[in-house]
Structure formats: structure tokens, C-alpha cells
């Protein structure tokens, strides 16, 4: 993401950072161990998307923002105590049947 004195971030970049901040704040209200887990998962997810997603792919980024905000709302619920993530890896050797 661009950096200059008083970084000029696009509206979309600001939303992404705002969402990230929201997750980190919500993580504070969970248990110590879970907080570390949340921070780790969220950090990885955001960085992976920052690297893999084309910054001009507005539609997809907006989708990710909507999804992220829904997940954040769920996380903020005091009844939610943990998150888990599922990573699917496809290897070329996997053949059907």
C-alpha cells in the first residue's frame, strides 16, 4: 500500500484498514489465547489477500469487505468465544476415484 508523508489512502484502503482495526479491537475482548489466535488468523488472511488480490478488482474486494464485516459482527457477539478457519489445499496428485 502506498506511503508518502500523510499517506493518501483510497476510500477502499481505508475501509480495509478500518475492518482490520475492528478485528483487532474485537480480539481484545476474548481470552488471551483466543486473542492470539484471532490476531494470527486475521493477519494472515488480510496479508494473503493483499498479496493475491488485484487492487483493481473492486467487486471482489467489496465482497471481501462485506463478508469481513459480517464475520466481525459475529465476533463482536459476547457469545462468540473463538474462531476457526479452514484452509483447503489442492495438490496435483489428488485424483478423483
Amino acid at each position, binding site marked *: 500500500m502506498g*506511503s508518502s508523508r*500523510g499517506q493518501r489512502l483510497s476510500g477502499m484502503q*481505508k475501509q480495509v*484498514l478500518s475492518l482490520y482495526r475492528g478485528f483487532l479491537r474485537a480480539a481484545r475482548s476474548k481470552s488471551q489465547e483466543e486473542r492470539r489466535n484471532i490476531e494470527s488468523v486475521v493477519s494472515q488472511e488480510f496479508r494473503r489477500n493483499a498479496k493475491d488480490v488485484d487492487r483493481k478488482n473492486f467487486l471482489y474486494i467489496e465482497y471481501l469487505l462485506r463478508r469481513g464485516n459480517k464475520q466481525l459482527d459475529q465476533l463482536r457477539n459476547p457469545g462468540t468465544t473463538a474462531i476457526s478457519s479452514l484452509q483447503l489445499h489442492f495438490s496435483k496428485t489428488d485424483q478423483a476415484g
Partner: protein
Amino acid sequence: MQACYKTIVCVGWSRKSLPSLRSSRFRICAVQAQPETVQKVCDIVRKQLALPPESELTPDTKFSALGADSLDTVEIVMGLEEEFGITVEEDGSQNISTVQEAADLIEKLVQDKTAPS
């Protein structure tokens, strides 16, 4: 210790009118952070960015120069919030790009917090 003013304006009487303050580069700091605050911020930045101990970190070093992206900056600001017991507003954190800027903002927020209302 850093001086607040970048240049000293010398008033020359040979001119017809006084030189305008706008023509010289003044940096007026409303709040100048104390050295201990700056030091604490440096420590947190080092830890957050996992900088090797021998790496150079001055108050004016830009986080981006240390390899930090904007997500790292968010994390740094969150770490500073916890250390100093403050809350940084959305706009505030976007203007932080160096240790000095962070320290100045922290001092201001701490002052606002402890000032009698």
C-alpha cells in the same frame, strides 16, 4: 532532543516591510513528545516489526522504510493504544508514519485524557 523549529527567522530591517512568516519554513509543534514517550514508542515499533537490535531507528524514520505496510501500522497503533491506555480515532492513525508522529499524538491524547474537563 529535537528542536521544534526547523529554521530561525532573522528579521532584516533593510527591507521595507517585515518578512512574512509564511515565506520561511516554520514547523510549529503544538505538542512535543517527551523523550521517554519517544523511547517507549521505539521499543514497541521494534517489537512489532521484529527489527534486529542493531537496526537504526530514529524518531523520523518512516515505518515504511523499515518494511512496514499499512497493516503493520494499524498493529503498531493498536499496541501503542494498549501501552498508553488511549484510543486513537480512525483519522488519527492514518496520519502516523513515523515514531515522532506517534509519540506526539500519544502525548496529546494523554494530555486530553488527564486534563480537567
